[in-house]
């Protein structure tokens, strides 16, 4: 059955021969949000998406443990067939309140949120317009919807406008008794591979002109961006233009799960139409309780967001000064562009040898077939940890001839 993956197998084998296998990293123990034990040694974690460091937050652990004790290990079924727990409804209300929306729906993972929301919202007569760099869950949800799907150029509102114009020219008049065709634009707050940010104000303007709908996936920006942590939608000041906000609990909130929040009338109908919501087990109470506490902390405490922003800047500036080519924006995701998969693999292996874990991101999972070392910072990284990482990365970059040596080394070489 698996013969069709011969090319994949060959690519994987080539990678394995260049050093350690990145897919076989198994941490023996998590020491903190920023450190783990790997092969008997502590490693610095610089690629976990643990933006606020809440996985070890004492009050989240206590809330989760109390719920575990009170309500057991799992829900053993779906909301629709086996019942909603009070905690599910309470977390939905909390998210809706946090985002200033009428209603929110929980999903069991962030991936399922996109799958369930896109397939539930869009039908075969609708158009989905996806940013070209969208996450796999968005592409998969779009495919499952049966809608006509087009990709617009990454972060390019003009290309989006052009496509909406052409789709409008092609639209046939709605037949009596039929539902009109709708256009749904899908973008992300922070893009997960390069850490760049959507030009949301411009995209919202295109949405208004075209009478389209807009969904923003704040997976990497919820709790990260915005004075109140409400994500890019808050920063851009376009909350009224955004019809659907999707997010995840597995990054800044340190748990697992996903959601969609909206003011759309009858939004709750999705509970009866979204298969990724209906046909999977609901989140266990322990997770719901931990996430609820984490969201409360996001609401009450802006300081971790400030620390996160400072850490992101420290890493971005450090790596830029060392001569690396990074993404266009300072954000907690800092990706280093490398010339090819082999160099990326060598670099990644050397970094792990130096006790630093980052993400190796290779085509086809990356935009424009780039080979990347992807890092993400946390609010709980110390300045010393970030400086250590910058020094190690710069040192390996110089050894591999990817960035210039230090000025002292250069002048020594000139002599």
């Amino acid at each position, binding site marked *: 059955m698996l013969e069709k993956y011969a090319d994949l197998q060959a690519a994987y084998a080539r990678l394995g021969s260049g050093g350690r296998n990145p897919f076989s990293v198994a941490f023996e123990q998590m020491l903190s949000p920023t450190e783990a034990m790997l092969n008997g040694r502590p490693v610095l974690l610089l690629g976990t998406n643990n933006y606020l460091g809440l996985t070890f937050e004492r009050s989240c652990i206590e809330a989760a443990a109390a719920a575990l004790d009170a309500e057991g290990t799992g829900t053993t079924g779906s909301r629709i067939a086996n019942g909603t727990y009070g905690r599910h409804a309470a977390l939905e209300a909390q998210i809706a309140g946090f985002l200033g929306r009428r209603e929110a729906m929980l999903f069991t993972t962030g991936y399922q949120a996109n799958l369930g929301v896109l397939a539930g919202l869009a039908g075969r007569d609708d*158009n989905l317009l996806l940013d*070209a760099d969208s996450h796999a869950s968005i592409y998969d949800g*779009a*495919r499952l919807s049966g809608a*006509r*799907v*087009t*990709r617009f*150029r990454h972060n390019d509102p*003009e*290309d989006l406008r*052009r*496509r909406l114009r*052409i*789709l409008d020219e*092609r639209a046939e008049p709605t037949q009596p008794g039929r539902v009109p065709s709708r256009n749904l634009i899908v973008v992300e707050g922070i893009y997960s591979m390069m850490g760049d940010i959507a030009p949301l104000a411009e995209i919202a303007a295109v949405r208004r002109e075209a009478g389209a709908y807009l969904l923003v996936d704040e997976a990497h920006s919820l709790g990260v961006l915005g004075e109140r942590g409400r994500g890019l939608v808050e920063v851009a000041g376009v909350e009224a233009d955004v019809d659907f906000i999707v997010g995840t609990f597995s990054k800044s909130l340190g748990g697992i799960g996903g959601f969609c929040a909206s003011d759309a009338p009858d939004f709750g109908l999705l509970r009866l139409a979204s298969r990724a919501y209906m046909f999977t087990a609901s989140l266990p109470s322990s997770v719901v309780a931990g996430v609820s506490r984490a969201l409360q902390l996001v609401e009450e405490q802006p300081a971790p967001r400030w620390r996160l922003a400072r850490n992101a800047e420290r890493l971005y500036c450090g790596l830029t000064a060392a001569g690396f080519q990074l993404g266009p924006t300072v954000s907690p995701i800092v990706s280093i562009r490398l010339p090819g998969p082999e160099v990326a693999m060598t670099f990644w292996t050397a970094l792990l040898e130096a006790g630093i874990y980052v993400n190796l991101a290779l*085509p*086809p999972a990356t935009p*424009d*077939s780039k080979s990347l070392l992807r890092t993400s910072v946390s609010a709980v990284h110390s300045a010393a940890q970030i400086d250590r990482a910058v020094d190690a990365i710069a040192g390996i970059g110089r050894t591999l001839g990817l960035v210039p040596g230090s000025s002292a080394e250069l002048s020594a070489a000139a002599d």
Partner: protein
Amino acid sequence: MSDQADVIVRIASVLGGMADPVAQRAGEIDAETSIVRDLKLDSLAVMDFVMALETEFDTVIPIDALSGVETIGDLARLLQPTLPRPTHAAAGR
């Protein structure tokens, strides 16, 4: 037929603007050229190629319309109905 030849010339110019080694094959394409077998584009590269064509031809090709596309000729037939349109939206990109 000459329309189709024109379209293929424009497809070749878009292909020429892509990264090597694909760009090097731009001069060799004709209606029978297989996009996957001859040009060796993977599914993601096909999507990027199509996005560049959509700009050049000022059109929109839904992803599902690509399922029946195997050759450059198939692509040209998909693009042909929109040929008379000027490509002002593509200017400057």
